[in-house]
């Protein structure tokens, strides 16, 4: 299980040129805005076409420029959670979740949706529309919708950035539970240091369209020996670096 990613994509004057692998774990793509993290997710999901490279998930090749393989997003079996405005406004909570199932009988759909409603603590909101629920509830529905079809991996693009601090802590715990329960590899994009530090099994540090470093969070943030990393930390978190001996 896991993802293998090697991608090259030029957009105007920005060049993304990255390569990383992950197993059945939670990998955090960390770096400041414009480093190419979200773009990587879009390329993995097939919402954008790379110039060249290779993407495989769970051993299945999703994209291979050399072999001219480029699966449509529909056929990649990846759960994708966008930053915001992500629920279908004309569908109820239950309908939104059910939409994550491709083809199943009515009975099966009902069973799976009920299960998701329970797991994500959405009881009583089934018939509400997205505009009638809170931000945290919305993000839980999105996660439920992305997971109900049992994807091979879950791609999360700054899923909690629009939430307040308390909710964010709650959602991080929920995400850990999900990882445990569904046993699914998760790629989490964030520019929140605390989130990266507390959530990641593996941190993939992005800088200017390239991977600056890959490693365990403590290794990266505590005793980095990589000048790129030091520079990045000093640039973004001067207070933190000042306290590091």
């Amino acid at each position, binding site marked *: 299980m896991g993802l293998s990613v090697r991608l090259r994509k030029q957009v105007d004057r920005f060049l993304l040129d990255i390569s990383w692998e992950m197993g059945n774990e939670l990998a955090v793509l960390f770096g400041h805005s414009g480093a190419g993290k979200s773009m990587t997710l879009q390329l993995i*999901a097939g919402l954008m076409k790379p110039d060249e490279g290779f993407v495989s998930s769970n051993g299945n090749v999703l994209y291979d420029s050399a072999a001219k393989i480029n699966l449509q997003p529909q056929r990649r*079996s990846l759960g994708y959670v966008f930053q915001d405005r992500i629920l279908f406004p004309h569908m109820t909570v239950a309908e939104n979740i059910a939409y994550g199932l*491709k083809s199943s009988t009515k009975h099966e759909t009902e069973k799976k949706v009920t299960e998701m409603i329970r797991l994500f603590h959405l009881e009583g909101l089934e018939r509400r529309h997205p505009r009638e629920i809170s931000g945290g509830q919305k993000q839980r529905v999105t996660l439920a919708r992305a997971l109900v*079809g049992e994807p091979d991996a879950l791609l999360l693009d700054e899923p909690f950035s629009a939430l307040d601090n308390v909710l964010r802590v709650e959602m991080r715990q929920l995400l850990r539970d999900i990882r445990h329960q569904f046993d699914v590899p998760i790629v989490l994009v964030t520019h929140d240091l605390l989130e990266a530090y507390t959530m990641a099994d593996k941190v993939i540090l992005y800088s200017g369209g390239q991977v600056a470093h890959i490693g365990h969070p403590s290794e990266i943030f505590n005793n980095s020996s990589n000048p790129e990393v030091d520079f990045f930390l000093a640039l973004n978190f001067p207070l933190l670096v000042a306290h590091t001996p």
Partner: protein
Amino acid sequence: MDDTVLFSLRLSFQVAVIATFFVAIVGICIAYILSRADFRGKELLDILFTLPLVLPPTVVGYYLIILFGRNGYLGKYLHEFTGWSIMFTWYGAALASFVVALPLMIKTTRASFESVDKSLVDASYTLGHSELKTVLKVVLPLSKKGIIAGIVLSFARALGEFGATLMVAGNIPGKTNTMTLTIYSMANSGEWMKANVLVLFFTFTSGAFLYIANRFSKRMV
């Protein structure tokens, strides 16, 4: 009411309903292609479909005669194989209404398709759904307002069509004299009382349509 008046009322509605039916189907398809696909000649196609909106109706009618007339580029073959021509029939009136109403449908529908958040479309794709299913379940429901507005505008335009209809279908009493043509004839021959009835009817129906359309679109936020 006078027979002529009743006939032209019925004919006008018949023509407008048929024309709007096809305008809705064709318009939604073209609007979707223009809003989502990217291809060479797209802007040219857009201009071509918009032209009937700005061209004088007589010019549109003239083109239709050249295309569908008994000796027209397309009408020639139709006449050869079936011995029938669309000219001077109520089908011709429906065709004229279709052509002049289509741009209104395409414009409003395209705008509402383009206002559907692309990340919702992407979300549907990543959830494993085909483009067709995404259109049916996400794009169309979220564009409902624009589509209904387009249908109402097209219907009003089709109902009020005059110039192109006159050229293609003529003004044959008991055959192709729609409301607008009848009003013209009556005004010409000084039958003011009858014309008044039609004009008032036209005004009230159109007003009612706009009222209903407004009420309906307000309810669907």
